[in-house]
Protein backbone atom coordinates (compact mmCIF):
# COMPACT_ATOMS: atom_id res chain seq x y z
CA UNK A 1 0.00 0.00 0.00
CA UNK A 2 1.19 3.52 -0.78
CA UNK A 3 1.21 6.05 2.03
CA UNK A 4 -1.21 8.87 1.25
CA UNK A 5 -1.50 12.09 3.23
CA UNK A 6 -3.82 15.06 3.39
CA UNK A 7 -1.66 18.11 2.68
CA UNK A 8 -4.26 20.88 2.68
CA UNK A 9 -7.91 21.54 3.53
CA UNK A 10 -10.32 24.44 3.10
CA UNK A 11 -14.05 24.85 3.73
CA UNK A 12 -16.81 27.39 3.81
CA UNK A 13 -20.30 27.04 5.27
CA UNK A 14 -23.09 29.62 5.40
CA UNK A 15 -26.17 30.95 3.69
CA UNK A 16 -25.59 33.61 1.04
CA UNK A 17 -28.53 33.22 -1.34
CA UNK A 18 -26.97 35.37 -4.04
CA UNK A 19 -23.95 33.13 -4.56
CA UNK A 20 -24.44 30.12 -6.76
CA UNK A 21 -22.57 26.84 -6.48
CA UNK A 22 -19.58 27.89 -8.59
CA UNK A 23 -19.22 31.14 -6.64
CA UNK A 24 -19.25 29.27 -3.33
CA UNK A 25 -16.82 26.61 -4.47
CA UNK A 26 -14.21 28.60 -6.36
CA UNK A 27 -12.49 30.38 -3.45
CA UNK A 28 -12.46 27.18 -1.39
CA UNK A 29 -10.80 25.20 -4.17
CA UNK A 30 -8.31 28.01 -4.72
CA UNK A 31 -7.40 28.09 -1.06
CA UNK A 32 -6.90 24.32 -0.84
CA UNK A 33 -4.73 24.30 -3.96
CA UNK A 34 -2.65 27.29 -2.80
CA UNK A 35 -2.11 25.79 0.63
CA UNK A 36 -1.07 22.47 -0.87
CA UNK A 37 2.05 23.94 -2.41
CA UNK A 38 1.21 22.25 -5.71
CA UNK A 39 0.30 24.21 -8.80
CA UNK A 40 -3.16 23.41 -10.17
CA UNK A 41 -1.65 21.66 -13.21
CA UNK A 42 0.59 19.52 -10.99
CA UNK A 43 -2.39 17.85 -9.32
CA UNK A 44 -2.92 14.60 -11.22
CA UNK A 45 -6.54 13.80 -10.44
CA UNK A 46 -9.69 15.68 -9.48
CA UNK A 47 -12.63 14.00 -7.79
CA UNK A 48 -15.78 15.57 -6.39
CA UNK A 49 -18.85 14.67 -4.41
CA UNK A 50 -22.23 16.39 -4.71
CA UNK A 51 -25.87 15.65 -5.37
CA UNK A 52 -27.72 16.96 -8.41
CA UNK A 53 -30.90 16.77 -6.33
CA UNK A 54 -29.77 19.82 -4.37
CA UNK A 55 -29.63 21.87 -7.57
CA UNK A 56 -32.61 20.27 -9.25
CA UNK A 57 -30.93 19.48 -12.54
CA UNK A 58 -29.31 16.31 -13.90
CA UNK A 59 -25.55 16.62 -14.43
CA UNK A 60 -25.58 19.88 -12.50
CA UNK A 61 -22.28 18.83 -10.94
CA UNK A 62 -20.52 19.35 -14.28
CA UNK A 63 -21.01 23.12 -13.95
CA UNK A 64 -18.80 23.08 -10.87
CA UNK A 65 -15.81 22.48 -13.11
CA UNK A 66 -15.91 26.22 -13.83
CA UNK A 67 -14.64 26.63 -10.28
CA UNK A 68 -11.76 24.27 -10.86
CA UNK A 69 -10.42 24.98 -14.35
CA UNK A 70 -10.31 22.09 -16.79
CA UNK A 71 -7.91 23.08 -19.57
CA UNK A 72 -5.78 21.34 -20.73
CA UNK A 73 -8.24 18.51 -20.11
CA UNK A 74 -7.95 17.03 -16.63
CA UNK A 75 -8.41 13.51 -15.28
CA UNK A 76 -11.60 13.88 -13.33
CA UNK A 77 -14.33 11.88 -11.65
CA UNK A 78 -17.43 12.52 -9.61
CA UNK A 79 -19.58 10.63 -7.13
CA UNK A 80 -23.18 11.43 -6.25
CA UNK A 81 -22.17 11.18 -2.63
CA UNK A 82 -20.55 13.12 0.16
CA UNK A 83 -17.04 14.23 -0.74
CA UNK A 84 -15.66 11.64 1.70
CA UNK A 85 -16.42 9.02 -0.96
CA UNK A 86 -14.70 11.18 -3.56
CA UNK A 87 -11.69 11.10 -1.23
CA UNK A 88 -11.94 7.32 -1.15
CA UNK A 89 -11.93 7.12 -4.95
CA UNK A 90 -8.95 9.48 -5.11
CA UNK A 91 -7.11 7.40 -2.49
CA UNK A 92 -7.80 4.23 -4.52
CA UNK A 93 -6.53 5.89 -7.68
CA UNK A 94 -3.29 6.78 -5.92
CA UNK A 95 -3.02 3.17 -4.74
CA UNK A 96 -3.17 1.99 -8.36
CA UNK A 97 -0.07 4.05 -9.05
CA UNK A 98 -1.78 5.95 -11.87
CA UNK A 99 -1.57 9.27 -10.01
CA UNK A 100 0.43 10.74 -7.14
CA UNK A 101 -1.83 13.57 -6.01
CA UNK A 102 -5.49 14.54 -6.08
CA UNK A 103 -7.81 17.47 -5.50
CA UNK A 104 -11.00 16.38 -3.74
CA UNK A 105 -13.94 18.74 -3.41
CA UNK A 106 -17.58 18.71 -2.38
CA UNK A 107 -20.35 21.25 -2.30
CA UNK A 108 -24.08 21.70 -1.86
CA UNK A 109 -26.67 24.36 -1.29
CA UNK A 110 -29.26 22.80 0.99
CA UNK A 111 -31.07 26.15 1.02
CA UNK A 112 -32.20 26.02 -2.62
CA UNK A 113 -34.72 23.21 -2.37
CA UNK A 114 -36.93 21.52 0.18
CA UNK A 115 -34.63 19.19 2.11
CA UNK A 116 -37.52 17.18 3.55
CA UNK A 117 -38.72 16.22 0.07
CA UNK A 118 -35.27 15.85 -1.44
CA UNK A 119 -34.16 13.44 1.26
CA UNK A 120 -37.39 11.43 0.94
CA UNK A 121 -36.22 10.56 -2.58
CA UNK A 122 -33.41 8.40 -1.22
CA UNK A 123 -35.97 5.96 0.25
CA UNK A 124 -37.67 2.98 -1.42
CA UNK A 125 -39.43 4.59 -4.40
CA UNK A 126 -42.23 2.04 -4.49
CA UNK A 127 -43.31 1.64 -0.88
CA UNK A 128 -41.85 4.50 1.13
CA UNK A 129 -41.21 7.69 -0.88
CA UNK A 130 -44.91 8.00 -1.87
CA UNK A 131 -45.62 8.53 1.85
CA UNK A 132 -43.08 11.41 1.82
CA UNK A 133 -41.56 10.81 5.25
CA UNK A 134 -39.14 13.66 6.01
CA UNK A 135 -35.63 12.92 7.26
CA UNK A 136 -36.42 14.07 10.80
CA UNK A 137 -39.31 11.59 11.04
CA UNK A 138 -37.18 8.75 9.71
CA UNK A 139 -34.40 9.59 12.17
CA UNK A 140 -36.94 9.83 14.97
CA UNK A 141 -38.05 6.24 14.34
CA UNK A 142 -34.44 5.19 14.84
CA UNK A 143 -34.04 7.43 17.87
CA UNK A 144 -36.98 5.91 19.71
CA UNK A 145 -35.69 2.39 19.04
CA UNK A 146 -32.24 3.40 20.29
CA UNK A 147 -33.52 5.06 23.44
CA UNK A 148 -35.61 2.00 24.26
CA UNK A 149 -32.80 -0.46 23.59
CA UNK A 150 -30.01 1.49 25.30
CA UNK A 151 -31.84 2.93 28.26
CA UNK A 152 -30.56 6.40 27.32
CA UNK A 153 -32.99 9.27 27.63
CA UNK A 154 -33.47 12.59 25.89
CA UNK A 155 -31.08 14.01 28.49
CA UNK A 156 -28.13 12.09 26.96
CA UNK A 157 -29.18 13.38 23.54
CA UNK A 158 -29.38 16.96 24.81
CA UNK A 159 -25.88 16.56 26.26
CA UNK A 160 -24.56 15.73 22.81
CA UNK A 161 -26.26 18.83 21.42
CA UNK A 162 -25.09 21.15 24.20
CA UNK A 163 -21.49 19.91 24.01
CA UNK A 164 -21.44 20.12 20.21
CA UNK A 165 -22.78 23.68 20.12
CA UNK A 166 -20.35 24.81 22.80
CA UNK A 167 -17.40 23.34 20.90
CA UNK A 168 -18.77 24.86 17.70
CA UNK A 169 -18.18 28.31 19.17
CA UNK A 170 -14.50 27.82 18.33
CA UNK A 171 -15.28 26.83 14.76
CA UNK A 172 -15.87 29.75 12.38
CA UNK A 173 -17.45 27.33 9.91
CA UNK A 174 -20.10 25.95 12.25
CA UNK A 175 -23.52 27.61 12.00
CA UNK A 176 -25.27 26.37 15.15
CA UNK A 177 -23.27 27.42 18.16
CA UNK A 178 -23.64 28.78 21.65
CA UNK A 179 -23.73 27.94 25.30
CA UNK A 180 -27.08 26.25 25.98
CA UNK A 181 -28.14 24.99 29.37
CA UNK A 182 -29.31 21.40 29.36
CA UNK A 183 -32.59 22.20 31.13
CA UNK A 184 -33.40 24.93 28.65
CA UNK A 185 -32.88 22.54 25.75
CA UNK A 186 -35.02 19.87 27.39
CA UNK A 187 -37.81 22.37 28.05
CA UNK A 188 -38.34 22.82 24.31
CA UNK A 189 -41.22 20.90 22.67
CA UNK A 190 -40.41 18.07 20.30
CA UNK A 191 -40.03 18.73 16.61
CA UNK A 192 -40.85 15.11 15.75
CA UNK A 193 -40.98 13.13 18.95
CA UNK A 194 -38.76 11.93 20.45
CA UNK A 195 -36.47 14.45 18.71
CA UNK A 196 -36.29 18.14 19.54
CA UNK A 197 -34.87 20.91 17.36
CA UNK A 198 -31.43 20.59 18.96
CA UNK A 199 -31.35 16.86 18.20
CA UNK A 200 -31.68 17.62 14.49
CA UNK A 201 -29.02 19.04 12.17
CA UNK A 202 -28.80 22.72 11.28
CA UNK A 203 -28.77 22.89 7.49
CA UNK A 204 -26.51 25.24 5.63
CA UNK A 205 -24.79 25.69 2.28
CA UNK A 206 -21.15 24.85 1.92
CA UNK A 207 -18.13 23.85 -0.06
CA UNK A 208 -15.02 21.94 0.93
CA UNK A 209 -11.77 21.04 -0.79
CA UNK A 210 -8.65 19.17 0.16
CA UNK A 211 -5.53 17.91 -1.55
CA UNK A 212 -3.94 14.51 -0.96
CA UNK A 213 -0.57 13.29 -2.12
CA UNK A 214 1.43 10.09 -1.97
CA UNK A 215 4.52 9.32 0.09
CA UNK A 216 7.55 11.45 -0.57
CA UNK A 217 5.49 13.98 -2.51
CA UNK A 218 3.46 14.70 0.62
CA UNK A 219 6.56 15.00 2.79
CA UNK A 220 7.97 17.58 0.43
CA UNK A 221 4.83 19.69 0.56
CA UNK A 222 4.13 20.31 4.19
CA UNK A 223 5.59 20.27 7.67
CA UNK A 224 3.30 17.67 9.09
CA UNK A 225 1.49 15.55 6.51
CA UNK A 226 -1.57 13.84 7.95
CA UNK A 227 -1.39 10.22 6.85
CA UNK A 228 -4.46 8.21 5.97
CA UNK A 229 -3.56 5.03 7.86
CA UNK A 230 -6.79 3.23 6.97
CA UNK A 231 -9.94 3.97 5.03
CA UNK A 232 -12.93 1.74 4.39
CA UNK A 233 -16.64 2.06 3.73
CA UNK A 234 -19.56 -0.34 4.07
CA UNK A 235 -23.29 -0.19 3.41
CA UNK A 236 -26.32 -1.68 5.15
CA UNK A 237 -29.51 -2.84 3.39
CA UNK A 238 -31.70 0.07 2.28
CA UNK A 239 -35.00 -1.17 3.74
CA UNK A 240 -35.54 0.47 7.12
CA UNK A 241 -37.45 -2.46 8.58
CA UNK A 242 -34.95 -5.28 7.94
CA UNK A 243 -31.98 -4.16 10.04
CA UNK A 244 -31.36 -3.24 13.64
CA UNK A 245 -31.46 0.55 13.39
CA UNK A 246 -30.02 0.91 16.90
CA UNK A 247 -26.65 -0.45 15.86
CA UNK A 248 -24.48 0.43 12.89
CA UNK A 249 -23.07 -2.83 11.58
CA UNK A 250 -21.58 -1.11 8.55
CA UNK A 251 -19.72 1.38 10.75
CA UNK A 252 -18.34 -1.41 12.95
CA UNK A 253 -17.09 -3.33 9.95
CA UNK A 254 -15.63 -0.26 8.24
CA UNK A 255 -13.94 0.70 11.50
CA UNK A 256 -12.43 -2.73 11.87
CA UNK A 257 -11.13 -2.74 8.31
CA UNK A 258 -9.74 0.78 8.72
CA UNK A 259 -7.91 -0.31 11.87
CA UNK A 260 -9.53 2.09 14.30
CA UNK A 261 -8.58 0.16 17.39
CA UNK A 262 -5.01 -0.73 16.41
CA UNK A 263 -3.72 2.12 18.55
CA UNK A 264 -4.76 4.89 20.94
CA UNK A 265 -7.03 7.64 19.57
CA UNK A 266 -6.81 11.27 20.60
CA UNK A 267 -10.20 12.33 19.26
CA UNK A 268 -12.90 11.43 16.75
CA UNK A 269 -14.84 13.43 14.18
CA UNK A 270 -18.08 11.53 13.56
CA UNK A 271 -20.61 12.71 10.99
CA UNK A 272 -23.82 12.23 12.96
CA UNK A 273 -26.57 14.54 11.70
CA UNK A 274 -28.73 13.60 14.73
CA UNK A 275 -27.69 13.43 18.36
CA UNK A 276 -28.73 9.82 18.94
CA UNK A 277 -26.65 8.80 15.93
CA UNK A 278 -23.47 9.97 17.64
CA UNK A 279 -24.19 7.54 20.44
CA UNK A 280 -24.86 4.73 17.99
CA UNK A 281 -21.60 5.46 16.15
CA UNK A 282 -19.58 5.72 19.33
CA UNK A 283 -20.78 2.27 20.32
CA UNK A 284 -20.29 0.86 16.82
CA UNK A 285 -16.65 1.98 16.73
CA UNK A 286 -16.02 0.87 20.29
CA UNK A 287 -14.65 4.26 21.28
CA UNK A 288 -13.67 4.53 24.92
CA UNK A 289 -15.22 7.36 26.95
CA UNK A 290 -11.85 9.08 26.99
CA UNK A 291 -11.97 9.85 23.26
CA UNK A 292 -13.23 13.39 22.65
CA UNK A 293 -15.93 13.50 19.97
CA UNK A 294 -16.39 16.28 17.44
CA UNK A 295 -14.19 19.08 18.75
CA UNK A 296 -15.37 20.97 15.64
CA UNK A 297 -19.00 20.80 16.70
CA UNK A 298 -19.67 18.11 14.13
CA UNK A 299 -22.24 17.72 11.36
CA UNK A 300 -25.01 18.53 13.85
CA UNK A 301 -23.81 22.14 13.83
CA UNK A 302 -23.34 22.50 10.06
CA UNK A 303 -25.16 20.04 7.82
CA UNK A 304 -24.49 20.53 4.13
CA UNK A 305 -25.53 16.99 3.16
CA UNK A 306 -22.73 16.45 0.66
CA UNK A 307 -19.63 18.01 2.21
CA UNK A 308 -20.12 17.45 5.92
CA UNK A 309 -18.48 14.02 5.88
CA UNK A 310 -15.47 15.42 4.08
CA UNK A 311 -15.48 18.23 6.66
CA UNK A 312 -15.09 15.71 9.47
CA UNK A 313 -12.04 14.28 7.73
CA UNK A 314 -10.66 17.75 7.03
CA UNK A 315 -11.28 19.01 10.56
CA UNK A 316 -9.53 15.98 12.00
CA UNK A 317 -6.60 16.49 9.64
CA UNK A 318 -6.41 20.19 10.55
CA UNK A 319 -6.15 19.42 14.25
CA UNK A 320 -3.50 16.78 13.76
CA UNK A 321 -1.52 19.09 11.45
CA UNK A 322 -1.63 21.77 14.18
CA UNK A 323 -0.33 19.31 16.74
CA UNK A 324 -3.62 19.05 18.66
CA UNK A 325 -3.47 15.26 18.52
CA UNK A 326 -1.57 12.54 16.74
CA UNK A 327 -4.15 9.94 15.81
CA UNK A 328 -7.85 10.33 15.12
CA UNK A 329 -10.78 8.60 13.49
CA UNK A 330 -12.98 10.51 11.06
CA UNK A 331 -16.31 9.24 9.80
CA UNK A 332 -18.83 10.09 7.10
CA UNK A 333 -22.35 8.79 6.58
CA UNK A 334 -24.94 8.71 3.82
CA UNK A 335 -28.48 7.49 3.48
CA UNK A 336 -31.29 7.28 6.04
CA UNK A 337 -30.49 6.11 9.56
CA UNK A 338 -26.72 5.74 8.97
CA UNK A 339 -27.18 3.33 6.08
CA UNK A 340 -23.72 3.80 4.57
CA UNK A 341 -20.59 4.64 6.51
CA UNK A 342 -17.01 5.53 5.74
CA UNK A 343 -14.32 5.36 8.40
CA UNK A 344 -10.89 6.88 8.05
CA UNK A 345 -7.97 6.71 10.47
CA UNK A 346 -5.60 9.67 10.36
CA UNK A 347 -2.18 10.03 11.92
CA UNK A 348 0.39 12.79 11.99
CA UNK A 349 4.01 12.03 11.66
Amino acid at each position, binding site marked *: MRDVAIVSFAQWNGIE*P*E*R*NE*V*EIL*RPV*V*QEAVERSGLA*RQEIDFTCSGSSD*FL*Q*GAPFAFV*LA*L*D*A*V*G*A*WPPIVESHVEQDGAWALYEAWVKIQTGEVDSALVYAFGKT*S*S*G*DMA*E*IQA*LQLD*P*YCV*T*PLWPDADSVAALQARLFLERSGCSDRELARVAARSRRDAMDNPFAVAKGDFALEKLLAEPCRVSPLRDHDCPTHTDGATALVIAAGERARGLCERPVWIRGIDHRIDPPALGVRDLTRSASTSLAGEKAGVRRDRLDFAELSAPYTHQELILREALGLPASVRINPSGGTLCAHTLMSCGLNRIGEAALRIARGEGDRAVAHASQGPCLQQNLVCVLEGE
Partner: protein
Amino acid sequence: MGDADPVKAIVTPVRLEYQCSAGRAATRFLRGLAQRKILGARSRPGEPVYVPPRGADPRTAELTEEMVEVSDRGTVVTYSIVRVPSENIKLELPYVCINVLLDGAGIPFFHVLQNCPLEEVRIGMRVRAVWVPDAELAPAVTSIRYFEPLGEPDVPFEEIEEHT
Protein backbone atom coordinates in the same frame (compact mmCIF):
# COMPACT_ATOMS: atom_id res chain seq x y z
CA MET B 1 -63.25 -6.20 -6.23
CA GLY B 2 -61.31 -4.04 -8.70
CA ASP B 3 -60.26 -5.16 -12.14
CA ALA B 4 -59.06 -8.66 -12.90
CA ASP B 5 -55.85 -7.28 -14.49
CA PRO B 6 -52.82 -7.47 -12.21
CA VAL B 7 -51.07 -4.21 -11.31
CA LYS B 8 -47.98 -4.05 -13.54
CA ALA B 9 -46.81 -0.51 -12.94
CA ILE B 10 -47.33 2.30 -10.48
CA VAL B 11 -47.12 6.02 -11.03
CA THR B 12 -44.99 7.85 -8.44
CA PRO B 13 -44.79 11.50 -9.50
CA VAL B 14 -42.03 13.70 -8.17
CA ARG B 15 -42.26 17.46 -8.10
CA LEU B 16 -39.55 19.52 -6.44
CA GLU B 17 -39.33 23.29 -6.18
CA TYR B 18 -36.08 25.20 -5.93
CA GLN B 19 -35.14 28.81 -5.37
CA CYS B 20 -32.18 29.27 -7.67
CA SER B 21 -29.71 32.08 -7.70
CA ALA B 22 -28.47 32.99 -11.16
CA GLY B 23 -25.20 34.14 -9.68
CA ARG B 24 -23.52 37.43 -10.57
CA ALA B 25 -22.39 36.56 -14.07
CA ALA B 26 -25.68 35.23 -15.36
CA THR B 27 -27.49 38.13 -13.73
CA ARG B 28 -25.41 40.63 -15.69
CA PHE B 29 -26.01 38.67 -18.88
CA LEU B 30 -29.78 38.51 -18.33
CA ARG B 31 -30.02 42.19 -17.44
CA GLY B 32 -28.11 42.90 -20.64
CA LEU B 33 -30.71 41.01 -22.66
CA ALA B 34 -33.41 43.20 -21.09
CA GLN B 35 -31.57 46.11 -22.69
CA ARG B 36 -31.24 44.41 -26.07
CA LYS B 37 -27.55 43.66 -25.48
CA ILE B 38 -25.69 40.38 -25.52
CA LEU B 39 -22.98 40.54 -22.87
CA GLY B 40 -20.08 38.18 -22.51
CA ALA B 41 -17.18 38.31 -20.09
CA ARG B 42 -13.44 37.74 -20.12
CA SER B 43 -10.67 37.63 -17.56
CA ARG B 44 -8.65 40.34 -19.33
CA PRO B 45 -8.15 41.85 -22.81
CA GLY B 46 -6.80 39.28 -25.23
CA GLU B 47 -8.59 36.39 -23.52
CA PRO B 48 -11.72 34.85 -25.07
CA VAL B 49 -15.09 36.44 -24.39
CA TYR B 50 -17.39 33.81 -22.92
CA VAL B 51 -21.08 34.04 -23.84
CA PRO B 52 -23.10 33.44 -21.75
CA PRO B 53 -20.65 34.36 -19.00
CA ARG B 54 -20.29 32.01 -16.04
CA GLY B 55 -18.14 34.09 -13.76
CA ALA B 56 -14.97 32.13 -14.31
CA ASP B 57 -12.87 31.09 -17.30
CA PRO B 58 -13.67 27.38 -17.68
CA ARG B 59 -10.09 26.64 -18.65
CA THR B 60 -8.34 28.21 -15.71
CA ALA B 61 -11.05 29.11 -13.16
CA GLU B 62 -9.83 32.75 -13.24
CA LEU B 63 -12.62 35.23 -12.61
CA THR B 64 -14.06 36.83 -15.72
CA GLU B 65 -15.05 40.22 -14.33
CA GLU B 66 -14.73 42.34 -17.48
CA MET B 67 -18.08 42.47 -19.29
CA VAL B 68 -17.86 42.83 -23.08
CA GLU B 69 -20.79 43.44 -25.40
CA VAL B 70 -20.78 41.14 -28.42
CA SER B 71 -22.77 41.55 -31.59
CA ASP B 72 -26.20 40.02 -32.05
CA ARG B 73 -24.98 38.83 -35.44
CA GLY B 74 -22.81 35.81 -35.99
CA THR B 75 -21.90 32.69 -37.91
CA VAL B 76 -23.49 29.25 -37.60
CA VAL B 77 -20.76 26.80 -36.56
CA THR B 78 -22.99 23.76 -36.24
CA TYR B 79 -26.68 22.93 -36.25
CA SER B 80 -29.17 20.19 -35.64
CA ILE B 81 -32.61 19.61 -37.15
CA VAL B 82 -35.05 18.49 -34.49
CA ARG B 83 -38.01 16.31 -35.46
CA VAL B 84 -38.89 14.88 -32.08
CA PRO B 85 -41.65 16.57 -30.10
CA SER B 86 -41.19 17.56 -26.49
CA GLU B 87 -43.76 18.76 -24.01
CA ASN B 88 -41.67 21.77 -23.10
CA ILE B 89 -40.80 23.01 -26.58
CA LYS B 90 -43.38 25.25 -28.20
CA LEU B 91 -41.79 25.43 -31.65
CA GLU B 92 -43.29 23.94 -34.75
CA LEU B 93 -41.55 20.78 -35.94
CA PRO B 94 -39.12 20.40 -37.50
CA TYR B 95 -37.01 23.20 -36.08
CA VAL B 96 -33.31 23.96 -36.19
CA CYS B 97 -31.00 24.38 -33.21
CA ILE B 98 -27.81 26.26 -33.89
CA ASN B 99 -24.50 27.00 -32.25
CA VAL B 100 -23.76 30.52 -33.44
CA LEU B 101 -20.40 32.25 -33.01
CA LEU B 102 -21.49 35.82 -32.36
CA ASP B 103 -19.08 38.45 -33.66
CA GLY B 104 -16.70 39.23 -30.80
CA ALA B 105 -17.37 36.06 -28.82
CA GLY B 106 -14.81 33.36 -28.12
CA ILE B 107 -17.24 30.44 -27.91
CA PRO B 108 -20.50 29.64 -29.74
CA PHE B 109 -23.91 30.50 -28.33
CA PHE B 110 -26.81 28.06 -28.44
CA HIS B 111 -30.16 29.12 -29.89
CA VAL B 112 -32.78 28.40 -32.54
CA LEU B 113 -32.93 29.30 -36.24
CA GLN B 114 -36.18 30.16 -38.00
CA ASN B 115 -37.27 31.61 -41.35
CA CYS B 116 -34.86 29.42 -43.27
CA PRO B 117 -35.74 26.43 -45.46
CA LEU B 118 -34.15 23.31 -43.97
CA GLU B 119 -32.07 22.54 -47.03
CA GLU B 120 -30.44 25.97 -46.84
CA VAL B 121 -29.19 25.67 -43.26
CA ARG B 122 -25.40 25.31 -43.40
CA ILE B 123 -22.22 25.79 -41.41
CA GLY B 124 -20.76 29.17 -42.17
CA MET B 125 -24.03 30.97 -42.79
CA ARG B 126 -24.46 34.42 -41.33
CA VAL B 127 -27.40 35.00 -39.00
CA ARG B 128 -28.81 37.71 -36.76
CA ALA B 129 -30.96 37.73 -33.64
CA VAL B 130 -34.62 38.62 -33.84
CA TRP B 131 -35.62 40.26 -30.57
CA VAL B 132 -39.03 40.54 -28.99
CA PRO B 133 -40.66 43.98 -29.18
CA ASP B 134 -39.10 46.48 -26.75
CA ALA B 135 -42.11 46.35 -24.45
CA GLU B 136 -41.57 42.61 -23.98
CA LEU B 137 -37.84 42.75 -23.23
CA ALA B 138 -37.04 41.06 -19.90
CA PRO B 139 -34.02 39.59 -18.09
CA ALA B 140 -34.55 36.25 -19.83
CA VAL B 141 -33.00 34.39 -22.74
CA THR B 142 -36.41 34.47 -24.43
CA SER B 143 -35.85 38.18 -25.14
CA ILE B 144 -34.22 36.78 -28.25
CA ARG B 145 -37.01 35.00 -30.12
CA TYR B 146 -34.77 33.24 -32.60
CA PHE B 147 -32.04 33.82 -35.18
CA GLU B 148 -32.67 34.22 -38.88
CA PRO B 149 -30.50 34.38 -42.02
CA LEU B 150 -28.70 37.67 -42.45
CA GLY B 151 -28.05 37.47 -46.20
CA GLU B 152 -24.31 38.12 -45.96
CA PRO B 153 -21.79 35.88 -47.75
CA ASP B 154 -20.86 32.72 -45.83
CA VAL B 155 -17.77 32.60 -43.65
CA PRO B 156 -15.18 30.11 -44.99
CA PHE B 157 -14.93 26.91 -42.96
CA GLU B 158 -11.23 27.41 -42.14
CA GLU B 159 -12.06 30.60 -40.26
CA ILE B 160 -14.48 28.91 -37.87
CA GLU B 161 -13.04 25.38 -37.90
CA GLU B 162 -11.88 25.41 -34.27
CA HIS B 163 -15.46 26.08 -33.12
CA THR B 164 -17.13 23.34 -35.16
